């Protein structure tokens, strides 16, 4: 049985998130006490660096290095920002951490403030997470009352306080520069890096931005030591990763596994396999910025570097499982549709390019694609990746490239044979009555919303393909399995 190890989720489902006592009883705020009374900021940064902790929000940037950069910049005011935007469709890791263990994030942000020299923390969270917001607020007032947040924390003279900022649920606002602009009251549009937020961020001051899950790991690393943390995981990816399992998997839910666990272990041992015993086709990691992993990747250890090598990325941890009933061209179209909606429109490769990608995919799923269209998809994807301003555009063609790379035969079928093997692309299918099976009960004809079915009572019926809108109502109604999809 594959192991799950819960570090970021250590208290989720264990403690009452609305009681600080529960958190403290499980060594909560011990790391903060140790840091404030025994360790210099440099020593703490050294521990985080040695632990090998990398950012869990997508990019995988070494956390300790970011803390050090922020510390070294001279400024009269610095900020700590917790990125709780979580815009990746299907992902809910950060929400679960905030709802189940809000103090862990507060504690880690305070430790970060001590290390970087910031006295102010901001949590950027989407307004669609009301329960997480409520629990954060409760946690904040409890830790203020207990002297663990605010002025003169634990009597050490260190001051640090935290505020909440709300996002409106735009995917691009998870990108750190856009997030900062959104907090400043400006449009949530990214700007070119450098300058990186660590150097020039919120209100032009050095700002250390980390993800919720990244922060949640910090107190345990301090308490248990970097040696312990770095003993888990692979060579260049230490610790664990939380994944939100979704899609055609039996045990939809949250899992936390050591880096280096294989996809097979996650899907079959922890996730309980594919629904209805169907066949695994692909798993999307990294959401709209990632790519799909296929059967040939089932035994690849999951870590930052292997996912990149496989044409995907870690992303924030959404893991969507697809089976034989999913059409990969339609999946690519789904993600591009998402990107087109969420692109901020600031730069043309992303604004116009993704729209063109979407139109090409639409053309192919409607059976009007040509082989040149597949080449165009590839070339345009490369241009968009190379020329977009921010990470959204730089990664948005990944679902297209990776489905072409891994499922070229499905693209070919759509283009050449005008067929969708998964029976998803409606334009490519026909509902047909099998005359031998049809007893002429007329039920289908009476249920067809566009009167596309004709036939006499007790005679085989016929579907007029010109009129049929492929709603599937007839097939659902027929009691004799006389209607099939071609």
């Amino acid at each position, binding site marked *: 049985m594959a192991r799950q190890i819960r570090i970021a989720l250590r208290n989720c489902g264990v403690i009452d998130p609305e009681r600080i006592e529960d958190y403290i009883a499980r060594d909560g705020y*011990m790391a903060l006490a140790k840091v404030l009374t025994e360790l210099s900021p440099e020593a703490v940064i050294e521990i985080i660096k040695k632990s090998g902790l990398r950012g869990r929000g997508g990019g995988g940037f070494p956390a300790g290095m970011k803390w050090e950069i922020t510390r070294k910049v001279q400024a009269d005011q610095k900020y700590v920002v917790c990125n709780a935007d979580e815009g990746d469709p299907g992902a809910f890791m950060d929400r679960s*951490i905030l709802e189940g263990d809000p103090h862990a994030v507060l504690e880690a942000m305070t430790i970060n403030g001590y290390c970087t020299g910031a006295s102010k923390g901001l949590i950027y969270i989407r307004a669609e997470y009301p329960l997480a917001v409520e629990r954060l607020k409760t946690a904040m007032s409890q830790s203020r009352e207990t002297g663990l947040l605010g002025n003169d924390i634990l009597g050490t003279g260190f001051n640090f306080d935290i505020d909440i900022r709300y996002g409106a649920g735009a995917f691009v606002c998870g990108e750190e520069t856009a997030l900062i602009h959104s907090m400043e009251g400006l449009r949530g549009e990214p700007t070119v890096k450098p300058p990186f937020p660590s150097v020039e961020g919120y209100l032009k001051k050095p700002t250390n931005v980390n993800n919720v899950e990244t922060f949640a790991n910090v107190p345990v690393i301090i308490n248990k030591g970097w040696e312990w943390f770095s003993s888990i995981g692979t060579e260049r990816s230490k610790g664990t990763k939380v994944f939100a399992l979704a899609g055609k998997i039996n045990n939809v839910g949250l899992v936390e596994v050591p880096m280096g666990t294989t996809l097979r272990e996650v899907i079959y041992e922890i996730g309980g396999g594919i629904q209805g015993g169907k066949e695994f086709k692909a798993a999307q990691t990294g959401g709209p910025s990632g790519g799909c992993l296929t059967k040939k990747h089932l035994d690849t250890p999951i870590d930052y570097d292997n996912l990149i090598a496989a044409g995907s990325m870690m992303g924030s941890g959404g893991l969507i499982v697809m089976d034989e009933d999913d059409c990969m061209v339609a999946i690519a179209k789904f993600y591009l549709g998402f990107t087109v909606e969420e692109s901020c429109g600031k730069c043309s490769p992303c604004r116009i390019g993704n729209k063109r990608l979407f139109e090409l995919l639409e053309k192919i799923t409607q059976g009007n694609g040509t082989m040149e269209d597949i080449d165009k998809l590839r070339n345009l994807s490369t241009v968009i990746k190379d020329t977009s301003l921010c990470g959204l555009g730089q990664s948005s063609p990944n679902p297209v490239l990776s489905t072409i790379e891994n499922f070229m035969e499905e693209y070919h079928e759509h283009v050449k044979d005008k067929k969708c093997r998964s029976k998803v692309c409606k334009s490519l299918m026909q509902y047909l009555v099998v005359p031998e099976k049809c007893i002429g009960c007329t039920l289908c004809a009476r249920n067809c919303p566009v009167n596309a079915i004709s036939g006499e009572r007790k005679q085989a019926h016929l579907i007029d393909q010109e009129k049929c809108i492929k709603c599937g109502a007839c097939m659902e109604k027929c009691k004799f399995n006389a209607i099939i999809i071609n």
Partner: protein
Amino acid sequence: MDLRENLKAKNAALSQKDNPQSIIQVKVTMATCGIASGSRPVYEYMKEELSKRNIPARVSQVGCMGFCYAEPTIEITMPGKGPLMFGFVNTKKADEIIERFIRKSEAIEGVIPMNYETA
């Protein structure tokens, strides 16, 4: 270190008061996923019924345990025993858990295997 000893001692006392080892611990998942599948009535039910039926227990709300497919989930720890997790709990199931599992220590259906260790 003083401060930490202090914190720890303060809390040992606090948690002793709330959850002595002799009491049954009931944890109901109350994250967005759990509440959406109906864990709040289960939480209220467990709280009320256990006290009505004179079974001393601490019923608490907790965050996501990760078993979204089986929500609402509740975890029960009998004194001196390891925790057991039940899935797909409604008030009817909760009644069965109280009467058969808690009162009579009978094995009942609906237990979810837990396959993780915690840091």
